[in-house]
């Protein structure tokens, strides 16, 4: 049996037989989302439910990935399994792209269609006249009712430009780390991979500073009309993805320290690198369409 499951047995695709992690994950996510819903409905014990679910989800990830890493280190995965992982990661990233597309689409629609319509453009002259007579369509806006009160925006060429530089640099450092990994140069690999996630965390720190500034000094909040909604939801989800990506980089770095990867076989490293480039590209979209234009 052991023989049948080694990668050397050409053509054998490794099929795991029974695993408790998926059902642990499904139950944990159920508990976590139930807790989150209860939290939003203001139920007393909700935080306990939510955090219990959240902790179980983390436990599931730890256990599941631990199993997969163990199997990979034991040489159970052949080239076919590796290809499956690659395709899977690729399509997962594509689904993430589409998630962001929904929010970018909302931004586009508001800026180019619905806000001008509120101002009476096109066939909407009468609705403007009767409903929102004094509304001048501009961007940024918090709408005809000035929801959330007057606010200022964050100029693109301040912190956001610095953040752009940081993320682009981190894209370079992870590529250097990748080349070092392929060349078997472990010293460079460790340093540049560490640099990458440090830059990632620094980016998140600067975003947090920017948010604090926006909330406390600019009166720009999630409740600042359509501008605040699109601004914080887009940058917020992106920040969440950077945080996750940086945590993934730390995990990969710890695995590098353990000597898990070889110059030929290091799918986890590449998957995280793809993910990192993805958050990088999303940021470029944000910088251009949210901050700059």
């Amino acid at each position: 049996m052991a023989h049948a499951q080694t990668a050397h047995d050409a053509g054998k695709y490794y099929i795991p037989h029974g695993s408790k992690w998926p059902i642990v994950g499904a139950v944990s996510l159920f508990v976590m989302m139930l807790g989150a819903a209860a939290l939003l409905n203001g139920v007393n014990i909700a935080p306990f439910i939510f955090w219990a679910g959240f902790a179980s989800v983390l436990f599931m990830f730890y256990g599941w990935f631990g199993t997969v890493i163990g199997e990979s280190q034991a040489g159970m995965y052949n080239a076919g399994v590796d290809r499956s992982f690659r395709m899977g990661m690729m399509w997962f990233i594509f689904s993430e792209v589409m998630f962001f597309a929904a929010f970018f689409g909302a931004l586009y629609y508001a800026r180019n269609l619905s806000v001008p319509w509120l101002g009476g453009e096109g066939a909407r002259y009468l609705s403007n006249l009767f409903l929102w007579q004094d509304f001048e369509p501009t961007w940024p806006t918090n709408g005809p009712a000035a929801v959330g009160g007057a606010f200022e925006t964050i100029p693109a060429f301040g912190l956001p430009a610095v953040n752009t530089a940081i993320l682009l640099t981190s894209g370079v450092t992870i590529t250097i780390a990748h080349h070092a990994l392929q060349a078997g140069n472990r010293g460079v690999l460790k340093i540049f991979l560490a640099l990458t996630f440090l830059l990632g965390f620094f980016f998140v720190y600067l975003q947090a500073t920017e948010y604090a500034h926006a909330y406390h000094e600019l009166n720009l909040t999630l409740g600042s009309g359509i501008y605040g909604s699109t601004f914080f939801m887009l940058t917020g989800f992106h920040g969440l993805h950077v945080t996750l990506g940086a945590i993934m980089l730390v995990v990969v770095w710890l695995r590098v320290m353990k000597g898990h990867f070889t110059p030929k076989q290091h799918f986890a490293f590449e998957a995280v690198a793809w993910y990192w480039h993805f958050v990088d590209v999303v940021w470029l979209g944000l910088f251009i369409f949210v901050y700059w234009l």
Partner: protein
Amino acid sequence: MSASQTHGHAAAHDHHDEHGPAKGILRWLTTTNHKDIGTLYLVFSLIMFFVGGTMALVIRAELFMPGMQLVDPQFFNTMTTVHALIMVFGAVMPATVGLANWMIPLQIGAPDMALPRMNNFSFWLLVAAFSLLILSLFMPGGGPAAGWTLYPPLVLQTGDAFPLAIFAIHLAGASSIMGAINIIVTIMNLRAPGMTLLKMPMFTWTWLITAYLLIAVMPVFAGAVTMLLTDHFFHTTFFAAAGGGDPVLYQHIFWFFGHPEVYIMILPAFGIVSEIIPTFSRKKLFGYDAMVYATASIGFLSFIVWAHHMFTVGMPLAGQMFFMLSTMLIAVPTGVKVFNWTATMWKGSLTFEPPMLFALAFLFLFTIGGFSGLMMAIAPVDFQYHDTYFIVAHFHYVLVPGAVFAIMAAVYYWLPKWTGHLYDIKLANWHFWLSAIFVNLLFFPQHFLGLAGMPRRIPDYSTQFADWNMVSSIGAFGFGLSQLLFPYIVVKCVRGGARASDHVWEGAYNHGLEWTVPSPAPYHTFEVAPVVK
């Protein structure tokens, strides 16, 4: 297309006996076997079919006569909403995913799905999602009642059920995305040697395209409902004009998901019918390549037609023109399909076993639904039909005698392969004829009601609509009750019956790799990949 079975089934059993299924409930909780997971999906969807069906009967009971009889309007609205959510995400989609799990590895000669643990996760996450949704029915303020499209601002008035329903959609979406990734990776990576793309069976092909649609649009839906959530709880104004947002924005995002979603439900049905008609016509599928390209075209077009669901919200004229014309374009590849199915039967040696009966009913009745869809694609005409029972009749024609009949056909087609037994053909024929008659009694009068102006989603109506509503309700109860035959036939077949041969149907010989494995299909198949000539 045929497989050489040089390595045969003997090899399949050699050193893998210890990998038989685990015992008891753990088998189903921890399984990574595509056949087990396929069965789980199918059983789950059957349960949901009856839960959602019961809700439909509540609706039809209330509408049996004018006036308020049984339920209060809020609960009526909850029933229309949750009936739809359950039938779409809990019954039709999981049924086709279950069929995909069972059949795709068998059809392409793969040992299992490519990512077996994630496969299990997809299924149980769906159970988690529907537990949340069902739970939402019991919250203060009642279940979600704004229609399955969840349009704001109405949906934002939902009580404590609101976050539960939203999170249910998030989890169901995650489940679908993982399922779709698994299907794509399996098809792209695990095909047996010689199984080139253009040799793949049509069911596999349609699912490949469906999976791409799923990955592209489920995240968009997740984004849309996330915006609803933040509009409700966190002061955003995506869908509130006062803050510069627009409720119509939700409709755009929703239908960018929603239109591909309806093809997600029908494309696998196309695949099923494309398997069954050739088998019982004892011919090859007419125009196989054209079928593949037509499916791909329908998949592509589904992304650029979404606003035909919202002609009446006040779109610019150019928008109406674009979405009207792009929608009518879909009739071309769909017409290719209907033509090819018909041409497959031309001069064929036809027999009418239950799968063929369901597939033929699909062909005729889905086409009726397709034509009424074409009528509504015409923007000025749609102004009359919009939100009337005409649209209800339309989408139920494509979903019930369309998708659901195809799923029934698939089960009757492959059940002997799964269980190794033939089912009770006589009872299955009864099931078919009762279903086919009652489904028309149920939905055809709704065309008349809609054209006469009866609006959808109301618990009461003016008396001129009384007659056809009564007919429709009688049809509904007849259809619902005749479905009870189905689980009876299936359970009876699982428990025993005449032995099925390996290729089961005389005409199935040579129609795909699934007929080269024994009946019942062993727990593990194709551990050594077959070679396809």
